[in-house]
């Protein structure tokens, strides 16, 4: 079984502090904030560093590579996911360090494993943004 092909791509609500992030996704680029004061990379994008509280955050182009930190094949989608069938919700640990909640697509959930390398893919929302999801790295 391969999952994730027909997943919905809900339009995220873009805030001033997340506009640059979402604009980059529409170009196939994953930005991760990095604090210039304490060097911590932060997920999700925000106004200040959640580690040292500095507001000197820079946008760094992420490699798009990561590993599966945890995942679940869930059958209980709500809202846009109510009728899409089972899908994989995961925490992916980015190469830059932080973990992000996302989906693993183009995978067989039966053989998917924690620690497995994954690569970002972008799914267009049709509204000037794209959802960063991941597929097993080849």
């Amino acid at each position, binding site marked *: 079984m391969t999952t994730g092909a027909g*997943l*919905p*791509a*809900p*339009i*995220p*609500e*873009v*805030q001033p502090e*997340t506009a640059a992030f*979402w604009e980059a996704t529409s170009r196939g680029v994953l930005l991760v904030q990095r604090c210039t004061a304490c060097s*911590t*990379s*932060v*997920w*999700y994008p*925000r106004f200040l*560093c*959640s*580690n040292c509280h500095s507001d000197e955050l820079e946008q760094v182009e992420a490699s798009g590579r990561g590993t599966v*930190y*945890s*995942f*679940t*094949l*869930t*059958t*209980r*989608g*709500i*809202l*846009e*996911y109510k009728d*899409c069938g089972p*899908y994989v*919700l*995961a*925490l992916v640990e*980015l190469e830059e*360090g*932080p*973990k*992000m*909640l*996302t*989906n693993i697509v183009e995978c067989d*959930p039966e053989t998917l494993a*924690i*620690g497995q390398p994954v690569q970002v893919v972008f799914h267009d929302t049709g509204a000037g943004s794209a*959802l960063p*999801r991941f597929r097993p790295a080849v």
Partner: protein
Amino acid sequence: MTIRRKAFIAGAYEHPGRELPDRSIAQIHAEVALGALADAGLTLADVDSYFTGGDAPGLGGLAMADYLGLSVRYMDSSDMGGSVYLSHVGHAAAAIATGKCSVALITLGGRPRTTALRAPGQLMGAPPEAAFEPVFGMNVSAVYALAAARHIHEYGTTSEQLAEIKVAASSHAQHNERALLRKVVTVEDVVNSPMVSSPLHRLDCCVVTDGGGALVLVNEDIAKSLDRHCIAVLGHGEAIEHTKGGWQDVTVTGGVRSGRDAFEEAGVSRSDIDYVGLYDSFTITVLLALEDLGFCDKGEGGKFVLGGTLQAPFGKLPFNTDGGSLCNNHPANRGGMTKMIEAVRQLRGEAHAAVQVPDCEIALAHGTGGWLSTRMGNATVILGREDV
């Protein structure tokens, strides 16, 4: 400065309903308020402080204070999910200890069984994480499953070990005529039930019920004047745990800190605890609480629950003797209130005879509100039987 033995639980009441389509949420709050006050031998006119969570309709408890006709001089409608009523016990005890109030009412009510669920975290408008979680299909069972899957990966915990928690809850629920699920289940029943969000099966999940509950806390003078057996609040702790900007360890909850603070304030140790009420939204929630509260080492929860550890009356650490949220009741999708209520029943010796812990002297109630893996509010309360 401490709240130790400064406030006493005089009244506790669990709504008997599990499906209440014919009542407003405000009416449920009112019914449980009256129930807890009657239990204490007090009336709404005695109440001078009111505590409620995000389940109360209207602006921060104002509507409920109006609806109930309360004269309120101390108010707290803070929210952190279903554990907040344990937090409110600590806040009410602190307010009583400092003389800000003398009779505190805490209420919970809701109807998730007969009305549609709202999106997680969308109670008061879109929170900052909204664009980064729901868009990927984040749902409640899935984020708890992420914690369970990681715990299994790191510590070798098994689905059968998680199932033992449900088995213990169901062995208690059979004696509770109001429990939504009274059937005693086996480990096989749990692991063979349909997968909801792997590795969590349907029977790893709590029930969805309408209903509610309420508590009344009073100061020492009022406790002495009441006929009812009052239960001393010995200690309280609370902690928010969150993603730390993406650096969270999903196998660890805020129970590490809320438990530490509650034990320190109460001046008791783990081995003094005769009964635990542990928030059981899912089996994994209980397992992490046992570890984080220090009843066993990190990663050992799966082994700890084997052999009937949690089963009343003679297990090493009897838990959730009403059947808990896993089998009995999880009113308004919030399990903290019922953990307190059953702990009070145990300390009063009023639990069902089949599950009453003999000589139950000190109890702990613990809540995990919000969501594992992302952000949660933890609160721990330690209670003593000794009346004044």
